[in-house]
């Protein structure tokens, strides 16, 4: 639109200025003699001519712009494009010259008309070419942007899909561990205990003691290994809201540790509840869990403050933020991220970040930001 208007203005403005110059400097053809003016003042003739020209050129330009759009000139070959532009420019030149001769009752010399037509055609050709170049560039940029956006969306969808699938498999394996392996171990332990009791009744106390030890080891294996593996595969945040998963986390801490969780901004709507896709919940939970277990194991913390925040910026993009502060011994001089490295890579992979630094509480601060889907933008993400 802007391009069309500026092209028209350019085409119309140049001859108008040219005409004004005629009037002022008294050059041909207006300066041929007083009789040319037929009683009109020189200014009136110039103005009439100018209006006629502007109107004519405007109409011609608008028509040619529409025509060029209709001919899909941007999609044609270079030769066709040049031919079209030249033809149109000549047509505009002819129209303009016709308009000028209408304003000159006595007519003008053939040389003047031809020169005038060619001059106008050159002007029009220049203006149209500039406009076409401008429009073409804009269009290419827009297409590039659209392709890029599509590409990004496709990648994002694929990532979400992959994460969802990964989580589904993890959930399945985790449930198999819980339901299958664990139950079978319970049964095996019962069998061992039955044999132990039998041995004891027969007075074989030493053999019974050995079996007792076996059953204890099996039970420990069941209790710690299987449970821990199942948990690592599929933390509770997959099935529950993040806030619920954090309650469960706090319940497993040593009694000397106090963990407080605070929610800020639109965290309730965005992060804490079920709105978030399961993969995002699991990711945020894993970050907090890693920070908390570092604080307890390495930092020897007594107080852990977790802050979960959510915000949506003006362009509608939402971000979940979280910090885990502790009052422990703080970071070693050269902190290695170990378990956090993988989480950091994940956070960065989707345009977020994860950092480790000193905390105002005296210990370490783990801070992370992760872009998340806005509230209720993806109902399929619910679980």
């Amino acid at each position, binding site marked *: 639109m802007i391009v069309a208007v500026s092209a028209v203005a350019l085409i119309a403005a140049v001859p108008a200025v040219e005409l004004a110059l005629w009037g002022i400097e008294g050059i041909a053809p207006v300066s041929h003699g007083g009789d040319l003016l037929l009683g009109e003042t020189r200014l009136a003739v110039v103005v009439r001519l100018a209006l006629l020209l502007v109107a004519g050129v405007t109409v011609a330009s608008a028509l040619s712009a529409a025509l060029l759009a209709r001919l899909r000139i941007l999609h044609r070959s270079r030769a066709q494009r040049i031919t079209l532009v030249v033809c149109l420019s000549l047509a505009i030149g002819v129209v303009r010259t016709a308009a000028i001769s209408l304003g000159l009752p006595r007519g003008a010399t053939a040389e003047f008309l031809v020169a005038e037509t060619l001059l106008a055609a050159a002007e029009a050709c220049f203006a149209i070419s500039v406009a076409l170049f401008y429009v073409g560039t804009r269009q290419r940029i827009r297409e590039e942007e659209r392709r890029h956006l599509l590409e990004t969306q496709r990648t994002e969808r694929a990532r979400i899909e992959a994460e969802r699938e990964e989580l589904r498999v993890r959930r399945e394996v985790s*449930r198999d561990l*819980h*339901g299958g392996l*664990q139950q079978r171990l*319970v049964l095996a332990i019962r069998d061992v205990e039955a044999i132990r009791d039998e041995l004891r009744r027969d007075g074989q106390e030493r053999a019974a003691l050995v079996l007792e030890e076996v059953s204890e080891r099996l039970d420990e294996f069941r209790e*710690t290994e299987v*449970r821990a593996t199942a948990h690592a595969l599929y933390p*509770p945040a997959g*099935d*529950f809201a993040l806030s*619920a998963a954090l*309650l*469960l986390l*706090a*319940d*497993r*801490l*040593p*009694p*000397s540790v*106090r963990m407080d969780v605070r929610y800020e901004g639109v965290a309730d709507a965005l992060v804490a509840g079920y709105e978030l896709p399961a993969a995002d919940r699991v990711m945020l939970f894993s970050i907090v869990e890693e920070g908390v277990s570092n604080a307890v194991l390495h930092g020897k913390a007594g107080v852990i403050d977790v802050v979960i925040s959510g915000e949506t910026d003006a362009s509608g993009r939402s971000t979940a933020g979280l910090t885990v502060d502790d009052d422990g011994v703080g970071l070693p001089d050269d902190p290695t991220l170990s378990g956090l490295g993988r989480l950091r890579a994940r956070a960065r992979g989707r345009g977020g970040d994860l950092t480790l630094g000193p905390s105002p509480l005296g210990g370490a601060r783990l801070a992370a930001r992760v872009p998340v889907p806005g509230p209720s933008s993806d109902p399929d993400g619910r679980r």
Partner: protein
Amino acid sequence: MSAVRRSLRVAVVEDEAMMRGLVLALLRAQPGIEVVADAAGQAAALEAIPPGSADVALLDIELDDGNGIALGLALQERDPRLRILLVSSHNLLALVRSISSSAPSAWSYLSKRSSAQPGELVRALSAVAQGRVVIDPALVSRSVPRSDTLLAQLSAAQFRVLQLVAEGRGNGAVAAELGITPKAVEAHLTGIYRMLELPQGVNSRVAAVLEFLRQSVRPEG
């Protein structure tokens, strides 16, 4: 008021067929317990358990089409008199506690290990039906008071009494377990309510159990 004592109506929701079969067989063999509905999933359960049809809902937390917690909330919203006994192989006690503070009646919670033992499940169901809260004995015995809490200031004897109450035992059973008189148990309870700064009243017992859960943790390993 009917003179005949009605049997305890139980609805069972469990997605694993084998476990469901075991539980149903066990409960059907109990005098005084009537299984009024059984379902494998959330949607089926909402259909099979209309309001007023059951006294206690025995819900597995892991369900294929949702989870027992959401189901329990939905069921109790329709029927506030329904009592909920959750069963899980995970330790989800903290969730149950946080729900209980706003639910029409506090929820009870057994781990799948305990509920696989017949006596424990039947005992829990009848305690729940009597309005008590039952928390899995294994989780109760693993509970440790958090350092900076009122709970940490209870005497060892008081803490032991509260643990047994949290398992859903009545005063008589607590007295028998500890070898003291029921009167002594009552005295302990009064002391516990005072120490935990709970108002004296009908709900003190349940409130004390919820405080016990809130002010304690169950560390792993």
